[in-house]
C-alpha cells in the first residue's frame, strides 16, 4: 500500500511540475503580465511539489534541508500570493488589503524561517501551531480569489466562464486538501493518502484547462452558445434597424463567440461604430494596427494583451472587427481567428445591407420630398393658368372670337388634366409619408358609383357608352367618399382611355359575403400578362405602341390600389389582350 502511496504521490508531484513548466512556457509565448502571475503561482506550486519529493526521497545534510524548508515555505506562500495578485490584476483589490496581505505573507515566511532556525523547531507543538497558521493564511489568500472568480464568472461569456470556473475549482480543491491534511494530522491511513493524491492529480488537467483549454474543448463550450449565435447572425443580417444598432450587436457576439473581454468595430472611414469593454488607449492601439484589406491577424498590444483583428471587406474600404483577450481569454488560436473571420463575413454583409437600406430610405425620402415640393410648386402656375382660363370662359376679360373659344376649351381641358396629375402626385407623396388620412363615413356604394360615373361622363365621347349595373338594395360601406370617387373615376377614365377604338364600358356593383365589388369592364386594348405585375407599381405605367401616346403619370392605378387597401379592400385586374380588361375594386361592407 505504501508503495502505491509513493507512486501516486510521485506521479502527482511530477504532474504539478509539468503543469508549472507548461504554464511558464505559455507565459514565455505570450508575455502578458496577468498570465505571468498565474504562471508564477503554478511554477511555485511545481517547486513545492518537487521540493517535497526531494526532501522525502533524499536524505540531505541538515543545513541544506533547513534552507530547502525555507525555500519550500516561501514557494508555498508564493503560490497563494501570486493567485491573489492575479485576482488583483483582474478585479483590483483595495490597496490597503493588498498591503496587509503582502505584510502577512512576508511575516509568515520570515516567522517560519526564524522558528525553524531556532531550537523551537524541536517542539512539536510549536511547529504544529506554525504549520496551522501557515495553512490558514495560505487558505485565506487562496480562498478570497477563488470565491471572487466563481462569482465573477456568472456574467461572462461561456468560454471565459468555464475557464474561470476551472481555475476556481482547482484552487478550491487544493485548499480543501490542505485543510483536510491539516486537521486529519497524522491519523491518516494510506487509502486516504492515495485518494487525496489522486484528487490533487485530477486538478492538474483542470488547472491546464483554465490556462490553455484545448481547441476541442473551446469549441464545445462555444457550441452551447451556437444556437444563440446563429439567431444573432440572422438577426444581424435581417432585422437590424441601422448600422449602429447592428454594430452594437455584432461586437457583443464577436466577444462572446471567441470568449473575448472586449470588442471593437471600425468602419472604412476609421470611425468607431461600436466598442465594448475597451478604453480609449486600447481602441487607439488596435486602430493603429489596422490590418490590410483582408484576412485575420493576431495582435499583441503594448500591455501584453492579445487581440484578434479581422478585416471587413466593406464596399467603401476595409473596416475592422477586433476582439480583445482578457484575463480569462488569453488563448486565441487559429480556431478563434477562423471563427472571427467567418463571423466578420456576416457582419460585413449585415453592414452593407444596413447601408444600402439606409441609403434607399434616404433616397425614398428625398424622392417623396421632391414629389411634394414639385407638386406644390406646380400648383402656383396652375392657379394662374386655370384662373385666367376660367375668367376668359366667363367673359370677365372681354369677348373672344370662335377660334379663341375653341382654343380656350382645349386649354381648359388640358389645365384640368394637369391639375389632376399634380393632385395625384401630391396624394402619392402623402401616402408615402404616411400623412394620408381617410375621412370615413357611411355611404350607399351605389350612390358613390353613380356620382363618380356622373363626374366622368361629361368628359367622355359618344364612342364610349357607360352602362351601370347595380343591385336593387343599398350596398352599405364606410368609406372616404372623395377617395373612392378618385379610384372609380380613375378606373372609368382608364377604361375609356385604353379603348381607342371605342366600346362599351360596363360598371357593375356586386354585394355579397361581407364585401362589395365594383368592376369596370372595357373592350379596349387589354394588358399583356407579362405587364400585369408592373401595373400597380408606382410610375409603373405600361407603355405599348398602342398606348404610349396617351398621357398619364403611371400613378393612377398605384394610388387607386393603395387607397383601396387603406380602406381594407383591394383592386384586382383580369385582362385579355386585344379584347379588354376588367378592374375590380373590392371593399368591406359596413356591418349594420
Amino acid at each position: 500500500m505504501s508503495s502505491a502511496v509513493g507512486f501516486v504521490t510521485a506521479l502527482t508531484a511530477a504532474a504539478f511540475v509539468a503543469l508549472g513548466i507548461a504554464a511558464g512556457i505559455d507565459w514565455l509565448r505570450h508575455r502578458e503580465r496577468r498570465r505571468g502571475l498565474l504562471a508564477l503561482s503554478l511554477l511555485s506550486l511545481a517547486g513545492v511539489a518537487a521540493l517535497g519529493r526531494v526532501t522525502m526521497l533524499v536524505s540531505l545534510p541538515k543545513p541544506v534541508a533547513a534552507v530547502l524548508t525555507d525555500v519550500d515555505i516561501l514557494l508555498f506562500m508564493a503560490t497563494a500570493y501570486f493567485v491573489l495578485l492575479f485576482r488583483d490584476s483582474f478585479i483590483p483589490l483595495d490597496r490597503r488589503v493588498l498591503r496587509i496581505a503582502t505584510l502577512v505573507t512576508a511575516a509568515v515566511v520570515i516567522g517560519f524561517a526564524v522558528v525553524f532556525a531556532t531550537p523551537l523547531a524541536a517542539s512539536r507543538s510549536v511547529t504544529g501551531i506554525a504549520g496551522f497558521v501557515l495553512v490558514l493564511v495560505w487558505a485565506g489568500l487562496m480562498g478570497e480569489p477563488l470565491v471572487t472568480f466563481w462569482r465573477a464568472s456568472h456574467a461572462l461569456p461561456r468560454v471565459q466562464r468555464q475557464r474561470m470556473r476551472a481555475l476556481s475549482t482547482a484552487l478550491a480543491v487544493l485548499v480543501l486538501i490542505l485543510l483536510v491534511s491539516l486537521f486529519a494530522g497524522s491519523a491518516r491511513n494510506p487509502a486516504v493518502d492515495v485518494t487525496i493524491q489522486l484528487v490533487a492529480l485530477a486538478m492538474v488537467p483542470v488547472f491546464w484547462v483554465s490556462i490553455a483549454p484545448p481547441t476541442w474543448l473551446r469549441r464545445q463550450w462555444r457550441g452551447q452558445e451556437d444556437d444563440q449565435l446563429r439567431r444573432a447572425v440572422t438577426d444581424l443580417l435581417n432585422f437590424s434597424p441601422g448600422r449602429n444598432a447592428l454594430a452594437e450587436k455584432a461586437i457583443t457576439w464577436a466577444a462572446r463567440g471567441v470568449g473575448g473581454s472586449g470588442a471593437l468595430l471600425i468602419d472604412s472611414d476609421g470611425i468607431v461604430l461600436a466598442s465594448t469593454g475597451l478604453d480609449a488607449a486600447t481602441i487607439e492601439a488596435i486602430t493603429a494596427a489596422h490590418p490590410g484589406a483582408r484576412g485575420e491577424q493576431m495582435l499583441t498590444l503594448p500591455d501584453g494583451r492579445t487581440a484578434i483583428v479581422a478585416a471587413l471587406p466593406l464596399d467603401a474600404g476595409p473596416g475592422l472587427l477586433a476582439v480583445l483577450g482578457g484575463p480569462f481569454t488569453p488563448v486565441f488560436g487559429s480556431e478563434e481567428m477562423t471563427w472571427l473571420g467567418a463571423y466578420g463575413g456576416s457582419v460585413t454583409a449585415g453592414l452593407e445591407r444596413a447601408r444600402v437600406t439606409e441609403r434607399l430610405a434616404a433616397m425614398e425620402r428625398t424622392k417623396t420630398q421632391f414629389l411634394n415640393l414639385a407638386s406644390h410648386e406646380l400648383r402656383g402656375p396652375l392657379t394662374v393658368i386655370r384662373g385666367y382660363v376660367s375668367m376668359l370662359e366667363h367673359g370677365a376679360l372681354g369677348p373672344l372670337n370662335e377660334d379663341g373659344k375653341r382654343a380656350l376649351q382645349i386649354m381648359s381641358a388640358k389645365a384640368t388634366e394637369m391639375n389632376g396629375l399634380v393632385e395625384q402626385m401630391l396624394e402619392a407623396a402623402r401616402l408615402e409619408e404616411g400623412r394620408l388620412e381617410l375621412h370615413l363615413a357611411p355611404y350607399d356604394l351605389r350612390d358613390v358609383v353613380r356620382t363618380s360615373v356622373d363626374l366622368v361622363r361629361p368628359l367622355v365621347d359618344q364612342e364610349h357608352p357607360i352602362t351601370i349595373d347595380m343591385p336593387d338594395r343599398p350596398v352599405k360601406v364606410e368609406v372616404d367618399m372623395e377617395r373612392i370617387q378618385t379610384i372609380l373615376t380613375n378606373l372609368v377614365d382608364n377604361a375609356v382611355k385604353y379603348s381607342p377604338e371605342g366600346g362599351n364600358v360596363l360598371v357593375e356593383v356586386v354585394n355579397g359575403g361581407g364585401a362589395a365589388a365594383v368592376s369596370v369592364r372595357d373592350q379596349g386594348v387589354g394588358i399583356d400578362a407579362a405587364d400585369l405585375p408592373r401595373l400597380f407599381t408606382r410610375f409603373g405605367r405600361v407603355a405599348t405602341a398602342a398606348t404610349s401616346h396617351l398621357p398619364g403619370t403611371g400613378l393612377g392605378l398605384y394610388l387607386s390600389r393603395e387607397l383601396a387597401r387603406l380602406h381594407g379592400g383591394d383592386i384586382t385586374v383580369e385582362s385579355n389582350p386585344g379584347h379588354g380588361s376588367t378592374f375590380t375594386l373590392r371593399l368591406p361592407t359596413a356591418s349594420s
Partner: protein
Amino acid sequence: MRSTAEVRNPPQLAWLLGLPVVASPHRAFAAEHRFDAGPPPTRILLVEDDPAIAQMYQMQLVGDGYKVEIVGDAAAAISRIREGAADLVLLDILLPGADGFSVLESVLGQGRTPVVILSNYGEPAMVKRGQELGARDYVVKSRVTPREISVAIPGWLTDRSP
C-alpha cells in the same frame, strides 16, 4: 409690389406689372368712385407675394366691386390689419420671410377682421393649424377659380364662426 406704398394703388401695381389695368374698367371705376349711393365698397387685403396670382385675383375682385389692396409680406399685412384697413384678409401662407401663420398669430384676438387662407399648401396639418389660429376658411388656390373666391366672399364676411 415690394413696397406697400406702391401696391396700395391697384392701377399703379398693374402698370408696374405691365399688364392691362383691369378687365372691365367701367365696373372698376364704378366700384372705386361710389361717392353718393350705397355703402362704401368692401375692403379686401390680399396678402400674396406672387404678382401673377395677386394681379389675377385683383382683376376679378375689383371687377366685382371690391376694393383690393395687395401686400407682399407678413409685416405689411400685420400693420395694415392692425390699422383696420381691411374688412376681409385673403392670406397666402408661403411668403418671403415670416409666413402667413405668423400674421394670424399676430392678429389673433385683435379686432374681428376675418381672415381666409389662400394657399397652395393644403396638407391636413396646415389646414388644422390655420383653423386653430382662427382662420375663417382654408382654400387651396389651384382648386378654385378667382370667380369662386369672389362668390364666396359675402359668406366669409357674414359667417362669424371660424
